[in-house]
């Protein structure tokens, strides 16, 4: 039966090529536009560490002075060096890491290579285990190394390719900013997007090439990247003037807590810590703590650009217009065939059979529109990739989105066909036969 309906549908669509083309095109354009924007949205709002993100938390405390304090204000988005170090040494979580972004000059031995800057991360040891960072060769350093200010560096695969042609470089030395470092490990490709652990350096497509122990980097006064937020007037340095003062937040602190109970306990610890600091006179405000997990933290920061969300909404409005358009055209098309449908009814076809026939016809249009929409989406994503925004390179259509596209196209056109098909299948056979 379906084969027969399909045959009828193709015949009917062929009879009025312009109208058919118009319907297919409208669906294709609508689907293409919404799939392009939806894919961008999907890529940008993805989970950078699936399976692990629920156990990673970003503690926030409020060390600011009492000036300008208003109830309900959020604590700062980063921590001071003192608080970060205190929280790190308290060891109240399963794992914890204090970190900051920076940039270091690499001075290769090979005279063929000029010195160059790479983005770097200064962090404590748990970083690698906590974020499931994959190693190609070697491994990270330990907490003891942190305290010993060891001259160890972990480099990214890309930098290893550039410096050592991809060979196992563990144990070799590398001159960074005038100091010799021992290469402890080489990372395998690791590109978390968004750059969740430090959003101040840019949310997308930002990858560090070198990872150095935080204490070592601070001792060597390596330059920092990212933002500082300070309060009060006047700032001096912490470490010989190289870094923001004690009234500035500029480091990120992450903890791993394997259960909600542990998270609740950690929150209590943060409150206790704030109270202690207030008793010591360092904090002036009442305890103001936040403990968000990774996805909540991304959500709180609104990492997905508002333009992208606005575009997605507009594209769906666009799809809606295309669908309304298709409903109108299908209505015209089906009603014009009232005569033919009347004859089929008179010859014994049930109303349900007519409905099925017409719905199959709209499904054919939907499939064609879906294929067209998919092609347009590929084209749209190609255009997006050729823009210079920071997330441009990440935007690709994955299998899940491919399926969503097709489901959307077919369900949209079935939905669009429903009203016209129902309306047309209501024809009274006698009336149609009489008037012809």
């Amino acid at each position, binding site marked *: 039966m379906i084969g027969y309906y399909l045959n009828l549908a193709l015949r009917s669509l062929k009879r009025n090529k312009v*109208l058919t083309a*118009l319907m297919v*095109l*409208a669906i294709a*354009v609508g689907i293409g*536009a919404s799939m392009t924007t939806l894919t961008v949205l999907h890529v940008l709002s993805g989970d950078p560490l699936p399976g692990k993100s629920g156990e990673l938390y970003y503690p926030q405390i409020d060390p600011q002075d009492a*000036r*300008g304090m208003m109830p309900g204000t959020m604590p700062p988005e980063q921590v001071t060096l003192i608080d970060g170090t205190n929280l790190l040494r308290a060891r109240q979580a399963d794992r914890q890491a204090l970190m900051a972004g920076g*940039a270091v*000059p690499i*001075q290769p031995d090979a005279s063929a290579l*000029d*010195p*160059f*800057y790479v983005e770097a991360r200064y962090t404590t040891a748990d970083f690698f285990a906590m974020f499931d960072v994959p190693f190609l060769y070697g491994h990270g350093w330990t907490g003891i190394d942190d305290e010993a200010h060891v001259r160890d560096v972990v480099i990214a695969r890309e930098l290893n390719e550039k410096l050592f042609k991809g060979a196992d470089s563990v144990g070799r030395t590398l001159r960074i*900013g*005038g100091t010799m470092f021992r290469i402890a490990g080489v990372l395998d490709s690791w590109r978390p997007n968004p750059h969740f652990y430090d959003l101040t350096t840019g949310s997308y497509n930002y990858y560090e090439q070198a990872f150095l122990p935080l204490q070592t980097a601070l001792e*060597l*006064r*390596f*330059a920092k990247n990212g933002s500082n937020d*300070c309060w009060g*007037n*006047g*700032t*001096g*340095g912490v470490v010989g*003037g*190289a*870094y*923001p003062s004690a009234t500035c937040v500029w480091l990120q602190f992450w903890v791993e807590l394997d259960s909600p109970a542990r998270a609740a306990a950690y929150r209590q610890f943060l409150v206790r810590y704030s109270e202690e600091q207030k008793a010591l006179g360092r904090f002036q405000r009442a305890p103001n703590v936040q403990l968000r997990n990774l996805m909540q933290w991304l959500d709180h920061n609104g990492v997905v*650009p*508002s*333009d992208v*969300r*606005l*575009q997605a909404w*507009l*594209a769906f*409005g*666009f799809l*809606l*217009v*295309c669908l*309304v*358009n298709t*409903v*109108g*055209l299908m*209505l*015209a*098309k089906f*009603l*014009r065939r009232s005569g033919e449908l009347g004859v089929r009814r008179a010859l014994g076809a049930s109303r349900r059979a007519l409905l099925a026939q017409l719905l199959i016809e709209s499904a054919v249009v939907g499939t064609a529109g879906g294929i067209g929409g998919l092609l347009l989406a590929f084209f749209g994503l190609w255009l997006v990739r050729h*823009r*210079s*925004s920071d997330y441009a390179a990440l935007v690709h259509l994955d299998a899940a989105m491919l399926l969503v596209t097709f489901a959307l196209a077919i369900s949209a056109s079935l939905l669009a066909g429903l*009203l016209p098909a129902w*309306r047309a299948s209501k024809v009274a056979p006698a009336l149609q036969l009489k008037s012809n």
Partner: protein
Amino acid sequence: MHIQIRPILAALRRHKAGTLLIALQIALTLAIVCNALFIIHQRLANLSAASGVDEANVFVIANMWADLDRSTEQVDAQVRADLLALRQLPAVRNATPASGYPLRGGGWDNFVTMTPEQVKPTTDAAVYTGDEHFLDTLGLKLVAGRNFRPDEVMVMGTQQAITPPTAIVSQALADRLFPDGNALGKSFYAMGTAPSTIVGIVDPLHRQGVDQWSNGYAGQALIWPLRADDERGIYYIVRAKPGQLADAMREAPKALYAQNRLRIIDPVDGIQDYATIRHKVYDRDRGMAILMSVISVVLLAITAAGIVGLTSFWVGQRRKQIGVRRALGARQRDILAYFLTENFLISATGVVLGAVLAVAFNLWTVTRFEMSHMSMAYVGIGVVALLLLGQGAVLAPALRASRVSPVEATRSV
């Protein structure tokens, strides 16, 4: 010509579904197109914002130091030697050290207060640093007061907080701080313990960033007489002599490397002229404007095609009825007027609904996306455009209808 509206309404009542669909489509199209137009216009206005810089002749060098273990004094000596070398180049008119530049896409900004105790800041200003050559190098127009004197320029090391006693501010900042005018000679506090006195006013001077949050502080900037000798690197802003930009951009890095090889100037974007800087910083705005234009044009085309399709169907369905009317004495233009009026009635319903939707959508984007309120002019333009589009789209089927011969009345009944 007298048009009977009542028979049209009676006929439309028999095509409820089709009529409603066209009206709905017009309404949705209007809502989206109005908002898209509004966005396009806003973004295009950004694109042409004045920077105050002599953009045809100015370029920026991002100079990074390769050796980090130097004192501020050593860095400052190198910076001064570099600037001397740059200013001596035949194609170069002037050069200045800087910690940022207009349209950089973000950078240093400070809250500004009138007193040191003030809790709620008066406003926010982009902070530029440079020496006495800063104004001439950028080509900024001094509208009041004077330039910095060489002896006023101070040295600022890495992460050091220095508040110079003098500052030059943009007209926009002067107006915001001192609405009564005469800002010259007055002082303000910009997150420092000491005040800065305004010795000069320039106009215009764009901020470093173009983010939406800074729209409320548009054009508010201050310049401090500082050589920011960060141990990591520094920007050199260079102004070429008229027509010698390419020469200056070629010579400048050679002159710097001749001074000292221990520096890193990125081969890709270490040296940028202002055309590139402007193009980059507004890329997102331009992309949004293009996307919105494409969406609007395609949407209008689809709506027009939908109207043509449905009206053609109606004309085909009513050939007999039209034939009868013609046989009873209706002229061709009466038939034409009938379909045009019919479309006008449907479109009018659609645009009324659409205007409401457009405003509602805008209000929603104001709350969700920090957009500003849309002027009703956009709705007006959209309404006129869609009414014209409807009339244009219906013209071809209506003309075909008007050519139906009266003989049709006698056929096939």
